[in-house]
């Protein structure tokens, strides 16, 4: 009987000891290293119309807390793949609401139809590469030329624009003190892109019909962007949840003035 009692005590002791041992590993791995998006996010554009460019690099495993993002121990370099020129980029820290952002600056000469590679390497040797190709130097043709009315059909052609490139446009104007933005409709086929519009339609889309074209709004700006190959794939990466927007592009503005419709 006494032995039996000892057996039970021993059994329970072993049981609890096993549970305690099983409970020794008390760590939590809250970050999914295999998430698939890589170690860094990169946001920035290489615009061959500009002289200075900033590329933001972030550590994807660092929570968006002041302490976590204050330092970014990486080396960032930009290579013109076609010319074989490499430049190490300095970090410019810009703080938004206590959150430090690391924006790497380059003055490298950016040219059309050129491949650039951005390399991010951390202090443990982990490397991640990003590639951006600038678009062709497209000719922008506006027709007709001269003076416009609200009813004038204006046609803007960008030539050439390859099928894997993208042209985006926005009309910007002021109406009674408010800044209005209207997305431009871009047709893209046969190696060219076109934006065709009538000023009255653009104004109507921005503010509705309660306006007098040419009087309330007599001018607007078309801000267009010609983006290099592969940008659409980047936007659709990870169901739109991608963390890379490193692109080559060209941006410019065209101003239109118009009188009242007849």
């Amino acid at each position, binding site marked *: 009987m006494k032995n039996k009692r000892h057996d039970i005590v021993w059994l329970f002791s072993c049981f*609890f000891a096993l*549970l*305690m041992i*099983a*409970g020794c*590993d*008390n*760590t*939590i*791995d*809250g*970050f*999914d290293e*295999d*998430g*698939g*998006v890589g170690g860094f*996010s990169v*946001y*920035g*554009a290489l615009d061959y119309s500009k002289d200075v460019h*900033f*590329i*933001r690099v*972030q550590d*994807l*495993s*660092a*929570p*968006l*807390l002041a302490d*976590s993002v204050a330092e970014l121990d990486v080396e960032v370099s930009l290579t013109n793949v076609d010319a074989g020129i490499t430049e190490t980029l300095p970090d*410019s820290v*810009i703080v*938004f*609401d206590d*959150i430090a*952002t690391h*924006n790497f600056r380059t003055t490298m000469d950016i040219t059309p139809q050129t491949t650039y590679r951005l390399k991010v390497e951390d202090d443990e040797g982990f490397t991640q590469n990003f590639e951006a190709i600038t678009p062709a130097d497209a000719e922008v043709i506006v027709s007709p030329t001269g003076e416009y009315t609200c009813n004038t059909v204006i046609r803007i052609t960008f030539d050439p624009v390859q099928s894997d490139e993208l042209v*985006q446009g926005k009309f910007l104007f002021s109406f009674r003190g408010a800044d209005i933005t209207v997305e431009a409709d871009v047709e893209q086929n046969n190696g060219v892109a076109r934006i065709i519009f009538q000023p009255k339609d653009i104004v109507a889309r921005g503010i509705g019909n309660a306006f007098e074209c040419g009087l309330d709004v007599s001018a607007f700006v078309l801000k267009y*962007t010609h*983006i290099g190959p592969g940008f659409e794939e980047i936007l659709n990466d*990870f*169901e739109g*949840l991608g*963390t890379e*927007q*490193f*692109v080559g*592009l060209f*941006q410019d503005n065209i101003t239109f003035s118009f009188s009242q419709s007849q």
Partner: protein
Amino acid sequence: MIVLCSFIVSPEALAQQNSTIRVIAIAGDDGIPIAGANVLLLDPESGEILDAGATNNDGLFQFSGIDVREYRIKVSFIGYETYEQTLTTEANTNKIIQARLPVKVEALDELVVEDKREVTTGQVGLRQISRQDISRVPTPIAGGDLASYLQGDPGIISTGDRGGELYIRGGTPSQNKVLVDGMPIVKPFHISNFFSAFPQKAIQTVDLYAGGFGAEYSDATSAIIDVNLRPGNFRQYSGSGSVSPYLASFQVEGPFQTNHQSFMLMGRKSTISESSPFVSGDDGSDIDFYDITGRYSVQGYNFNCSMTGIITHDSGKINPARDFDLSWQNTVVGGRCSAFGETIDYPINVTVGYSHYKNSEASDGETNRSSSFSEIFLKFDNTQRVFGIPLDFGFKMNFGDYEASLAERFTDLESFEEQTILVNAFISNAWEVSDQLTLNMGVAGLATTFQPITLEPRFRAAYNPAGRDDIEVSMALGRYYQASTAIGDVRNAGSVFKVRKPINNNFALPSADHAILGYSQRFGNTVTLNVEGYIKNHHDISVSKLTPTATIETETTTAEGLGYGADIQLEYERNPFYLLLGYGYGNVEYKATSDDLGSFLSQPVDRYHPAHDQRHKVNSIVSYEIGDFTTSARWEFGSGRPFTQVFAFDLLVDIPDETPTTDSGTARTLFSRPFDQRLPVYHRLDVSVERSFRFTPNFAMDLKAGAINIYDRDNVFYYDSNNLQRVNQTSLFPYVSLRAQFN
């Protein structure tokens, strides 16, 4: 079925069985009815047990339809002298016996089987919790609390030590129903999970139905916690005041009219925010709670009534590092009467009252969100004999008012105010087929403003093999519906804010099917083994959709939830030693119905194990009385619960419209597949030593010292994915509490 059964009983038998003995067990010291007292109907000559039962929460038990002859009645309860009376019944009469049991003076070495045994059948899924059970759990206050006890149950999961959320055998808090004296109270559990609105001293009995409950309970799809408060002392005035690092409390009670009318008033207020920096060095206990309970009771020869009012308030942060300020309040006012006069065959119970609940969430820079629910209710229960068969029946009417101000928190739920009428009725019958087999069959129905009437069959059976009363095999089956739901963001453990809403006619009522099979055996007078396996299949559960990005707005959908598992509990009780060992296995999985439960990149999420899916839980309680000291220890072990990993923190800069130097970008936390990882295991040892010092016959002080988490383990409460922060439960927390009592 019930009608069919009625024809089985012969008219001859009915003619002989037409008298009733109604026993009311009353404690001799304070005049309060004794719940759970054993009542035996004996042959006065041979001493043979003819029938047996246990008193209900009003201290009442009756032998109905018995032969006209002489009987001996024996009433016993632990700690009281046995009451015996011989009487002769008369045809077509109901005899009432008020059995006043004097307090037993000498100490008990071993509980006699007859004292300990509760002669019950078909109790699968039910845990009857007494004040003594609650007092054995180390709690950082003098006495104990229901919340601390419940968390040790192998089938109950709490997601940490804050938030007041209890998951019972796979069911969520909103699928459970808590009743206090028959009145619904939505969330009586405090923000510190050690405490509820039910301190040990206020409790008469608690019936925890972890599933498979009978037709008398409705409008819940998982579990019932039925709390019965005790009346105030009917014989003398008494009071107490206590302080501890967690809370301060007071209690006064006494007779308005000796043996007939009494009152009780008690209140508690948390002190943890003030004491925590001194006791544990933790300055993060940013929580506050209080509760006030008032009670007036009146009991007569053939009736008893009580009026009860409860107010609870909780506020604070679950995660001190986050900006979520949470609060919830309950207000319950109502009364219950039970009439059991000689002119009626069975007691009539009526409950009426008002219950209000409000919870809210606020965060810096965001608008407050709140959701409230009020109801006025009337409930009636009775039993009538139909063709000689006693049929329990009852109905309930609820007038509900739901309000929510959501500040666009949920995409498909706008701020709303809705009124509902809910009518519920049930009928059931306990049929003793033989000495070995008892069946309980019933059906409940629920009709609401927006939905067709439900039909909810319930079935319970208990079988004693070979007529042995120390072994019982029992089972329960049932279908359950619920007229409302509560929706929260399940991935945000930093908030327990829930939107309560009625189910309108565009959606199916949430429902569940339960099946439980139990085996219990008593070994001698000291050891009890209880094993139960269960399946709960929930339908049309409202859940929030889980997507890779955390957004302010939450979309909702419906899911099927399958929960199954088993609980084993072994209890050893031989005065002065008590040991409880419990093990619970559970598995809960949510599956998409017509829609998906969210998405992870290109794949829809069609199933996941929710945050309360804990596979293994072990619980042990040891209590030992050494001289004037009572020592208690509880050790708990729980396997890790699911959580969701993060695969990226990001500030999205929308190129080419935004630029890195002028635009901050949009903050994003990108979540991996929902609940795909598990937290580490949890274990904790709590201990306490208590001693009472009696200075005069009318004044005593109780001193209790102990510690929560005595080996200071870092037990994770939850993982805050937004900042990769591990939030731990209570670290080592030593305490001393002092209670002064007078009478």
